[in-house]
């Protein structure tokens, strides 16, 4: 097994792997576009014309969260758990690719795919919906937040796949998480403040909630209290790291 460093072929391989999974393409690229267009059409007739751009901006921001969740949380965990089940990472390791190279190439490939998916989403939404022009600071914060959340989802998905090690249970858990996040964080049409109090308290521990509820104001005004968003991001990050830690521990135990 000749040692092979991370290379462009490996990253292309991972991107092909993502594109080959029709569910990732559908839920990560097509579904957010369809959802944003459908919801905006539904609400279009129910709100006064002057608040329409703000409402559409809100929908645009909220629905953009679906892409990283579907691509990374569901798509990556499903793909990687399947690979673990079939011992593909071991096979590639025996051909000289270190676990680190494989992991980095996957991260890069998924980031590229998520960015492309968000670009497609943005272009279509901007072309069809009446979206407000953001303040520069808000736009940078929004993109940075999406990037950090995507990385956290990657850690969470990797940890879950390593911990559960089988496609079935991993897919079930991530699907539950996906829909739970969508409902709790106000992505299913029901606003967070309309949810029961106990669900609201769960919602405010998640950064997606702040993005979907607060960012529309921030988008327009350009100033925002980052405290709660920052804390909730750290919280989700720590939970994901703990799951990754146990996943690695289980994985090492199995190797022995």
């Amino acid at each position, binding site marked *: *097994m*000749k040692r092979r460093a991370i290379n462009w*072929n490996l990253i*292309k*391989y991972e991107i092909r792997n993502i594109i*080959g999974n029709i569910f990732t393409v559908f839920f990560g690229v097509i579904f957010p576009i369809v959802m944003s267009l459908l919801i905006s059409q539904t609400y279009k007739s129910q709100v006064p014309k002057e608040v329409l751009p703000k409402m559409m901006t809100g929908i645009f921001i909220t629905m953009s969260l679906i892409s990283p969740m579907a691509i990374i949380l569901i798509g990556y965990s499903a793909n990687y758990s399947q690979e673990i089940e079939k011992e593909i990472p*071991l096979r590639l390791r*025996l051909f000289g690719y270190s676990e680190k190279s494989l992991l980095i190439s996957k991260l890069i490939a998924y980031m590229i795919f998520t960015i492309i998916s968000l670009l497609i989403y943005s272009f279509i939404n901007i072309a069809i919906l009446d979206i407000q022009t953001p303040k520069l600071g808000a736009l940078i914060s929004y993109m940075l937040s999406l990037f950090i959340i995507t990385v956290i989802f990657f850690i969470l998905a990797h940890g879950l796949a390593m911990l559960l090690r089988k496609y079935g249970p991993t897919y079930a858990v991530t699907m539950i998480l996906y829909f739970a996040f969508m409902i709790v964080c106000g992505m299913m049409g029901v606003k967070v403040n309309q949810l029961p109090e106990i669900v609201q308290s769960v919602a405010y521990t998640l950064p997606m909630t702040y993005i979907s509820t607060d960012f529309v104001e921030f988008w327009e005004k350009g100033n925002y209290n980052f405290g709660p968003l920052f804390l909730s991001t750290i919280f989700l990050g720590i939970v994901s790291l703990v799951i990754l830690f146990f996943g690695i521990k289980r994985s090492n135990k199995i190797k*022995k």
Partner: protein
Amino acid sequence: MLTIENLKVTYGKKKALKIDSSICIEEGDRIGIIGSNGAGKSTFIKSILGLIKYEGRISTKLKPADISVHMQYNNYSNFMPVKYIIETILNTKISKNLELQELIDFFGFRECLKQKYSTLSGGQKQRLTIILVLIQDTRLVCFDEVTSGLDFETRQKLLEKIIDWYKGRNNAICFVSHYYEELEQLVDKLLLIEEGEVIAFGDKRELFNKVCGDSLIILENTPKNKTLLKGYNIIKSPTHLIAISCKDIRDEIELSSLLINNDINFKRSCNDIEILSINAINNYKQMGV
């Protein structure tokens, strides 16, 4: 090239493999590794590759880059055309790599390159990994049950290709298989493992002589044959056969004449690995008792 001494592998409390004596793998060795399911054959390979925790010592000057392996189960992405799998794993372009092209043609694999991995047949999947392993041309190559699950014809063709490829080459090969006839064609040394213990290791012919004598006469197990061969040195064999150990050529000629005169079909062998392993295990167990 590689020496294994006092190796012990356990899975929980269960002993998976125990090697008390020393096993040396030399340059150019063709070692057949045999034993029943769960005997410890794959554990042996995984120990060499450092994939499992073991006690004891495996000393070698080989670097990881000098060892390649065809595992018992080899999987790749189902969504991917095979061409991309090859190009990614080897970090090369097939169109620019003449050696790889030669190997692909040698194994008749060109028509599979555009197919997705999931659509390949069992034999084609095995050929893919074999190509990926052979192209690396490492000093030590391990094949763990390459032909398991394939039909007779595919198995035979695949083995012929592997034998052809390694003709005149000096790579050491460890070949795990349940098919004795494959090992008869390919290997010159045998490592027999049973229930995690090494039963025998050494030159195939020397082991045969030690366990089975100079040669074997093998015939059908019928009451008539059994009666006729009373008094001969019958050794253990598969139940449908009778195997008689001949200590020299005179023994062999005498027995052959008897069988010919009685119009009985028989087979003569000096390398029957199946009967060799049955008797080696039997002798080992008797020694243990």
